[in-house]
């Protein structure tokens, strides 16, 4: 079993690299071969990825979130599932390249540093914890996708505004489509982040008898929640421009990255990976 998991762990970055390459060939060169096979190869890759997470869960008898590197691969899987759904919905495949570059990097880091021998904290067997973290993971993957669509939006926006009609202009879908993809994925992420905060609160209430917390990581989560909440509210009711919404998505994601890296490294928090 360990052999299979190790094998899949090595195989996944290779598969994601292949997908990234094919989506890139389609984006930059409109390559026929890539167009024909890339979606099928990506679906196969995602199936393998899914199998990998399930096997790990089963074999090590815990939801694979014991380290940040386990979390990265699960975030990657959730994000690529969100992307596949969007690709299916809008029937546009030119944005896949941007998403896949990101996921490939996540998977590469995860595969390189993941360690199966770590001792397990008891906490991972708690059911409430699994729900809380799954919700957070789904939320973050929605935000990651939203960040990438915002990036594409801003790239296309500036290309059009400055009359640069190159590959970005000719291959990306319209600004309106990119903007709605940003908005949908941000809403998706917001929904699950809300769930994660509520579940976390209930759990904290059980253990420490208080719902809210001032732990740095949780404060960052509140801040993220506020930013995406603002984006969703103002996009819907205040008629803010798509460009402003794109900037909000990008800053929200920057804060998430900060909380994942900086808080884990420099601040002491009970709320960290072992």
């Amino acid at each position, binding site marked *: 079993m360990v052999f299979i998991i190790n094998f899949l762990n090595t195989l996944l970055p290779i598969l994601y690299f292949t997908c990234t390459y094919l989506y890139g060939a389609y984006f930059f060169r409109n390559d026929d071969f890539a167009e024909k096979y890339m979606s099928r190869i990506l679906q196969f890759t995602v199936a393998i990825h899914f199998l990998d997470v399930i096997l790990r869960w089963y074999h090590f008898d815990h939801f694979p979130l014991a380290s940040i590197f386990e979390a990265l691969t699960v975030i990657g899987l959730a994000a690529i599932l969100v992307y596949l759904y969007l690709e299916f919905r809008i029937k546009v495949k030119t944005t896949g390249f941007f998403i896949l570059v990101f996921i490939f990097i996540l998977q590469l880091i995860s595969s390189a540093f993941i360690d199966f021998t770590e001792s397990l904290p008891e906490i991972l067997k708690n059911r409430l914890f699994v729900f809380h973290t799954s919700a957070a993971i789904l939320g973050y993957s929605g935000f990651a996708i939203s960040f990438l669509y915002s990036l594409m939006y801003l790239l*296309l926006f500036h290309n*059009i505004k400055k*009359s640069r009609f190159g590959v970005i202009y000719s291959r990306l879908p319209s600004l309106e489509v990119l903007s709605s993809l940003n908005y949908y994925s941000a809403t998706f992420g917001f929904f699950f982040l809300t769930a994660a905060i509520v579940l976390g609160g209930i759990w904290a209430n059980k253990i420490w008898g208080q719902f809210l917390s001032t732990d740095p990581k949780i404060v960052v989560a509140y801040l993220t929640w506020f930013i995406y909440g603002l984006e969703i509210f103002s996009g819907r009711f205040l008629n803010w421009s798509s460009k*402003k919404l794109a900037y909000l998505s990008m800053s929200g994601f920057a804060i998430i990255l900060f909380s994942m890296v900086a808080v884990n490294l420099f601040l002491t928090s009970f709320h960290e990976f072992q």
Partner: protein
Amino acid sequence: MEIYLLGTNHKTADIEFREKIAFSPENIPKALQKLRSIGNITEAEIISTCNRTEIYAGCDEMSDIYSVLSEFLSKSSGMDLTDKQHFFYRMKGEQAVQHLFKVAAGLDSMVVGEPQILGQLKDAYRIATEELSTGVLLNRLMSQSFAVGKRVRRETNLGEGAVSVAYAAVELAQKIFKDLEKRSALLIGAGDTGELTARHLKEKSIGKLFITNRTRQKAEHLAEMLNGEMIDFERMLDVLPKVDIIIGTATAPQFLIDASDIRKHRSHSGSRTLFMIDIGVPRNFDPKINQFESVFLHDIDDLEQIVDHNISKRKQEIPRAESIVSEETEKFLEWKRSLQITPTLVELRKKLENIRLLELNRHCSKLSDTEFQKIDRVTRALVNKVLHLPMVELKKYANGHPEGLLRVDIIREIFGLGEKEDL
């Protein structure tokens, strides 16, 4: 039977000459009749557009065919062509087939990959069939040329990307808005460019179209044609809050819309995106408008940049399109070779013999030796009898008579000859 082509196009002759030599659609039927009365020409088709006039003729070897056709053109155009022979190209067989397929693919057009030519070829063919001036050879040639045209457009990007300023404007609008159906546009100036742009917008089913022009009647006329709404020239700023796209094609000494107009009329529409295209000379819109965050303003230079980019991209697709043309030419020539009578007779006999043997073998296990020999004899005789009539009939045309080609073609088709199958 051979296919001959005499033609002139935008690469070999200037517009003045092409105009004189061209046939108007009403004159083509008569011209076709005349053509078929010349020498032993049995099939003819004339393709005449503003960029080319080409005569395709199917006949038995004729050494003087080109001078005959040129004389025919000279009469029909009323021009002496003796010193203008260098304006024409003369092709035969494979070359002529390849040329037509290139034309159909848009490879021979002024703007590579333009789609109109396919429609023009179809029109020309329709006229020719109405006059019954095409036969088995040209029928096959023309219908295959349509297939080539479609295949090239499907399998290559030869027709991709806007190559006219008007279309580039519409394509740009589609990079900003998702559905033009939900958007409305204001067209300022009802001249040629304006009309063309408005038509393209209409093709993309633009929601509402407002049209304004200094001369009122022109705007009214265009609005009626395109099912749009006419707006008074003086009051065009009033519709500003209602539109998403503004196209300026007017000739005016000063800016028709400047930054303060945009600021004033859009103050209550918030961050709504506005797309403005300035094709007017001198410019219709103040360039400062582009500073507004949600306003995209582009001028003719930008559009020309898109057009140039697309043309160079289309050129990269030429080798792929050409290889499709060669492939299809080979297919046509193979079909044409198959139309010879003797190989067809051999194939037909083989086909029936195969059917006979197959049936015989199916039943041989139930038969005694003598029964088998008897049935073998009977079926052999049957096949010979069945083949007798078509053989006699076909041999009548053994010297390549056009009627014979048609019959060979029909026989090949109904018996499925030349199809790869195992009997």
